[in-house]
């Protein structure tokens, strides 16, 4: 499981070169800490850089996607199971938040565990029959989940707001912090992003993470070693669903209006694309994937059609040249450069 250990870091340990010789000494603690510290400071400090409301608003959208992607990275990156139904699970969290606020006057904070648990439960229900087949069948079933979910929402009458959707009031003031201000809402989203990355790391470095990776690498061998493959796959999907539920809840309080279109098959494919581009096995891969797809096209002023073509070409290039995603590519680039420096 040494390989799995290196995958859990954004700056992997120097790997032994072919032939058994070590290419470079182990990474120092400063090298390991510099990227996470930089990301942490940038995430928390962004509002003080006065980026303007446009970029801050896009940063919140990026954050929402990152939360969901962290869950998908656990499922795909660790357990090796790809879902293209994550937008539907986000929708479960979003609609749970909006309906609980409307019918039970439940606050964001009270709805938080409900959204996570409900999305996890839906993931469990879908996973129970479908993960028995796994592979491509599971991908198709999760894709169908999105279609089914939007049909249910569109025809849900007053309960789901039908195709018109639902509205929700902003989070409001908690302990003197007014979350209807975009800066504060951004900081809340950033806190959720950091917590998601932290939880993702916890899973990746735990024995449970190693179990998932054993399933990913060789399901038959893992089962032969006594791993309850079916149970762990369902639990991984449920954990992933809980992340998506939280992302959906943050999203509904950000947009303050939701409709079925947000949670269909197309947004789900985009989420899958993001995790593959960013790097599903890297701690900061989800953040990078969300940044590339949500933030970058707007900053670069790319036409949406051009952007979609770029994503397609980019995905092919990533699969061919950077199978671990952009973050893994950057990490390996750093290690290669470092090795060259040490040798010289």
């Amino acid at each position, binding site marked *: 499981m040494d390989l799995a250990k290196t995958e859990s870091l954004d700056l992997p340990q120097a790997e032994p070169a072919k032939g058994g010789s070590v290419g470079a000494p182990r990474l120092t603690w400063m090298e390991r800490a510099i990227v996470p510290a930089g990301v942490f400071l940038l995430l928390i400090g962004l509002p003080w850089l006065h980026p303007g409301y446009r970029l801050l608003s896009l940063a919140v959208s990026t954050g929402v996607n990152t939360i969901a992607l962290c869950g998908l990275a656990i499922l795909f990156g660790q357990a090796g199971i790809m879902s293209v139904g994550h937008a539907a699970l986000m929708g479960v969290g979003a609609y749970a938040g909006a309906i609980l606020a409307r019918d039970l006057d439940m606050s964001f904070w009270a709805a938080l565990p409900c959204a996570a648990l409900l999305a996890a439960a839906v993931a469990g229900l879908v996973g129970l029959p479908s993960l028995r087949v796994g592979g491509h069948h599971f991908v198709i079933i999760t894709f169908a989940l999105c279609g089914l979910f939007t049909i249910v929402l569109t025809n849900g009458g007053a309960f789901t707001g039908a195709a018109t*959707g639902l509205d929700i009031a902003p989070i409001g003031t908690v302990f003197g912090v007014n979350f209807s201000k975009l800066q504060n809402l951004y900081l809340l989203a950033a806190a959720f992003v950091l917590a998601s990355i932290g939880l993702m790391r916890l899973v990746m470095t735990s024995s449970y993470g190693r179990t998932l990776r054993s399933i990913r690498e060789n399901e038959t061998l893992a089962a032969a070693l006594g791993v309850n493959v079916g149970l762990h796959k369902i639990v991984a999907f449920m954990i992933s669903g809980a992340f998506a539920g939280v992302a959906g809840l943050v999203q509904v309080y950000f947009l303050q209006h939701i409709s079925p279109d947000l949670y269909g098959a197309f947004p789900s494919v985009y989420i899958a694309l993001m995790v593959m581009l960013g790097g599903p096995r890297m701690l900061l891969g989800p953040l990078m994937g969300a940044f590339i797809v949500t933030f970058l096209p707007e900053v670069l002023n790319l036409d949406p059609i051009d952007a979609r073509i770029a994503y397609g070409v980019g995905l092919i290039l990533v699969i061919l040249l950077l199978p671990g995603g952009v973050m893994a590519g950057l990490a390996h680039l750093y290690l290669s450069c470092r090795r060259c420096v040490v040798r010289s």
Partner: protein
Amino acid sequence: MIAAWKERAVLALALSALAGPAFAQSEGGVKIGVVAAQTGAFVSAGNTIGAGVSLAVKEINDGGGVKIDGKTFKLDLLNRDDRTDVNVAIAAGRELVNDDNINALYGTESHDFSVSMTKITGPAKVLQFTGNSSLGAILTEQSVAPGGPLHYTFQTEPPEFQRSGSTARGVLKLLGKEIGQPLKNAVVFVADDATGQYLSEHYVKALEANGQHVDLIKYPPSTTDFTPLLTRAKSLNPDTVHFWYNGDVTLIAFPQAVQLNVAKGYFLFGVDPGVWAERKLVSTAPVTLSCVPMCWGAPPSPEAKSYFDRYFAAGAVKGVQSSVSLLYYDYVHWYAKAMEEAGTTDPDKVVAQIEKMKYQGVVSKVPLYFDKRHRVTFATEVCLVKPGTSDKFECAVEEPPAEPPPGDNAG
């Protein structure tokens, strides 16, 4: 050295004193924002918003600007592309409202985007003019009252029961005359999305109020093969088939319907006679077309013709939804006039002024006014294409009903 600087400072002060009166003529600008799709899936509707508002702003500025309390203000237009993405639309809206401090916002082309946008414009007291008739579902007397969340939001399209009523009357009048026998059975095709659901519930009631038995068939928004649904429609033996609401999709479904000979006559919502003529389309069956709100291919008044001439001369694209620009053009002029009459740019006073004003625009023969739910009233133009021709039209502008038909919630 210091003396030289002093001399320059005195000279600069003297020059600025001379220039003072001239600068006082123009006291900066009133900022107008537009958020609409200039790229992406909604571009055909979105680009008309920016084009209509741009033309109005240019005309006002060329005419000397807006005169408020003895001072002249130019309109500064800030145009933003929402890329048909709600996240980008919200980001653009926040930038315009919070960073650029706009006074009024025009757009967007989508119901969901517009509703999310009201959460930004409302608290900032920015006037929002949007053409989505589906906003009627949330515009109530309470929500648009002072202090209400939608006090600064105005729907620039009529209540749907009025637009549907006006359209149904025009369609049945023209098709009935052409077919030459009473029309009794109708099938309505509508996209099963937010706009489609909202529109169809009113249009079905409007047809029923005009003596029709109606069957409603909803199609998934991405449908391209309508054959199974049309076969089902044919089994209902309809006199007329009505396709709502996306003009581009309608033009895909209609030839399939004619091929299957589903009905005696057809109605295509949102297809301009201009598009029909430019594409040299021909139908063997009688077909009526309607525009939102009037047709650039067959303008019903000299004012409308003049508007569309200016609109296209300014470089706007001739498309299925070009006439949608009229849902925004008039309201820039109206907003400017309201500021002049209120003598201020203060949003509360301007809203109060708009609420009590009547404005004679291009879009209506009678002066426009906003009702107690911030919605306007005007008729919709419907045109019949003479069978076997691509450029011979007979048009009607039927007045909308004053009251909703039975069962309609007056949305």
